[in-house]
């Protein structure tokens, strides 16, 4: 890992825009709603019974006869890899497999809606590898039978290097259908110039002293999580009753006009402009904002707990080059490769040993690069400690689609006021 490979400040500045770009682009393309209706019409669902776990022979059935084709089509979110793609170049050099890397995933709901018709018809979607956030759509992909089962015999680096926490997740126990790309923490960010006391807990988001200066996320799952955690309920264990209570709590925050607005990634700009002083925030965004603009925002994991999300690499069941795809997945779990990715994307790295690697890289670097890498290696936002992990919870997981609809119906009226 050479220093020359670090992003220059303008690139890092661009990084803070990452999530803004992701969601806004599709949200604005209003016309596609019409096309969506046509596409959706007449498409049958797949999951007669939710396939939370794969049949025992599924792995063998899927992987038998699959051959290396020398090419992978990879669909990922924007700014999730150095634009020069050094990691992919190394992969091609080592294996001879070429990678067509496209930043086509902007938001989960629309991505699912886009590829669902082809997958349901058993047709390839043009990608062999895609990065899916654990959440409603992950379950939808899984329960529809759209994800290829992972053959762990082909994932030795993952087995060796991935943190244990990522091997027993609620959304994909034992990594039957996915392995993580990167994770992030949803916590609280605040501006210490405006707020004189330290913010430590979720209850601070209900403090009327900050009336009109608090920003919450418009994503129903993210919003609901904070309502649940504020009530002392772990999202993953929550019931419909808990949802009602959490919704009440969140409505109270809204009717008392404590919440200024419900934001997508634009919360980061609202924080920067001083429109809000405290906001529900994603860890990587705050770190990047501070690094790139010299802002002094604080990010805290609240006492009551926070949530963690994981973007996962999955192989669509209709992929043309699944073997090449799984080779790439495993390749990315080599410690130096994983460290190199983490140095660019600034989100939680699923490979603990990458921390040591980044320290080594820092020792080899000099000047600003050295400071930058050192701050990365010590950042709890890239490498949370055990205590941090203990406070982090995963999203609500839904047993049935109707449960998920009920959840949406409970929390949506808060955002769509």
């Amino acid at each position, binding site marked *: 890992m050479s220093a020359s490979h670090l992003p220059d400040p303008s690139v890092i500045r661009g990084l803070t825009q990452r999530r803004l770009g992701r969601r806004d682009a*599709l*949200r*604005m393309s*209003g016309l*596609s*709603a*019409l*096309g*969506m*209706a*046509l596409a*959706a*019409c*007449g*498409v*049958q*669902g*797949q*999951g*007669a019974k*939710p396939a939370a776990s794969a049949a025992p022979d599924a792995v063998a059935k899927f992987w038998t006869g699959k051959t290396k084709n020398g090419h992978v089509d990879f669909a990922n979110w924007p700014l999730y890899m150095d634009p020069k793609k050094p990691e992919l170049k190394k992969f091609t050099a080592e294996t001879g497999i070429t990678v067509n890397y496209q930043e086509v995933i902007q*938001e989960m*709901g*629309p991505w*699912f*809606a886009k590829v*669902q018709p082809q997958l349901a018809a058993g047709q390839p979607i043009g990608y062999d590898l895609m990065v899916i956030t654990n959440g409603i759509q992950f379950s*939808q992909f899984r*329960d*529809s039978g759209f994800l290829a089962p992972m053959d762990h015999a082909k994932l030795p680096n993952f087995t060796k290097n991935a943190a244990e926490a990522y091997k027993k997740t609620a959304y994909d126990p034992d990594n039957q259908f996915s392995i993580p790309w990167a994770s992030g923490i949803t916590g609280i960010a605040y501006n210490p110039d405006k707020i004189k006391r330290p913010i430590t807990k979720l209850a601070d988001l209900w403090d009327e002293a900050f*009336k*009109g200066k608090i920003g919450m996320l418009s994503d129903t799952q993210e919003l609901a999580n904070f309502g649940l955690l504020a009530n002392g309920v772990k999202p993953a264990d929550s019931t419909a009753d808990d949802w009602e209570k959490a919704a009440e709590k969140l409505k109270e925050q*809204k009717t008392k006009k404590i*919440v*200024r*607005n*419900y934001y997508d990634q634009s919360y980061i700009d609202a924080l920067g*402009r*001083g*429109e809000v002083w405290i906001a529900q925030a994603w860890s990587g965004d705050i770190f990047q904002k501070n690094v790139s603009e010299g802002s002094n925002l604080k990010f805290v994991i609240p006492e009551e707990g926070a949530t963690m999300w994981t973007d996962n690499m999955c192989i669509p069941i209709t992929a043309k080059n699944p073997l090449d795809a799984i080779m790439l997945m495993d390749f990315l779990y080599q410690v130096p490769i994983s460290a190199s990715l983490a140095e660019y994307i600034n989100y939680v790295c699923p490979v603990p040993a990458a921390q040591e690697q980044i320290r080594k890289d820092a020792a080899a670097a000099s000047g600003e690069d050295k400071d930058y890498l050192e701050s990365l290696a010590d950042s709890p936002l890239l490498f949370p400690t055990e205590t941090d992990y203990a406070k982090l919870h995963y999203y609500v997981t839904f047993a049935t*689609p*109707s449960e*998920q*609809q009920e959840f*949406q*119906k409970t929390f*949506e*009226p808060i*955002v*769509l*006021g």
Partner: protein
Amino acid sequence: MNRVKRQLAPYLLILPGSLWLLLFFVVPMFTMLSLSLQEGDVVNGYRFTFHWQTYVDAMEDYRTQLIRSLIYGLIATVVLIVLAFPAAYWIAFYGGRRKSTYLFLLLLPFFVSFVLRTISWKQILADQGPVLSPLRDAGLVPDAFHLLGSPAAVIGGLVYNFLPFMVLPIYVALERIDPRVVEAARDLYANPALAFRKVVFPLALPGVFAGVLMTFVPTTADYVNSEVLGGPETTMIGQVIQKQYLVNSDYPTASALSFVLIAVLLIGVFAYARALGTEDVMKVAAR
């Protein structure tokens, strides 16, 4: 042979347009109607069951947003007429040789994408932006006052974004008025105000009508302005529909809401057309 050709010609001429409408309007509308009556979820599939309950539920959940959209659309349209009429009038009667230049200047901002223009409004109306900062420094507004997230910001954005669609039709109507008609009114002892009221304004009405059609419908259905400039209590029906389609994959609710919106808009437009007189509508259509 030639006669057959001649008889067929009109049909051949309307064929491409009709096919286009059939393929990209009738078929999707039909599909959407079918979707709105289906039941199920995206994983297990939606089945057609004449599930009218979706309409009932959708109206129960999102009535507020629908009514709000109609009110915003109405206010925006009225403000547009008030702003656009004088501008169009001035360009048509006093623009002289520079008429096209003025029209071009009016259209110039619209060479920039709709979304970008709206986002720039976000900067202008920001708490620390060029509008509010001086007002706050001068003590004219309280510290906590803000524009972004308020209905005023959303309606302001709508008015700004749809201004040319009101100015142009009114301008076209005014521009066609023969100046001699106005002179005749003056010769018959009408003062300028009376001449305007009795001659110019009625002749401009078809333009206003066209302008209203071109602005009321899209402003009511718009979702970009409320998404970018709005707050927790300014959600418009377009936002709800796009969220149901593109985020929740809840196609029946989205389709049902779309149909209700189309129905309400059609009823509104027809009522308006009746009130204003169908003759004018025909005139507009004939132009």
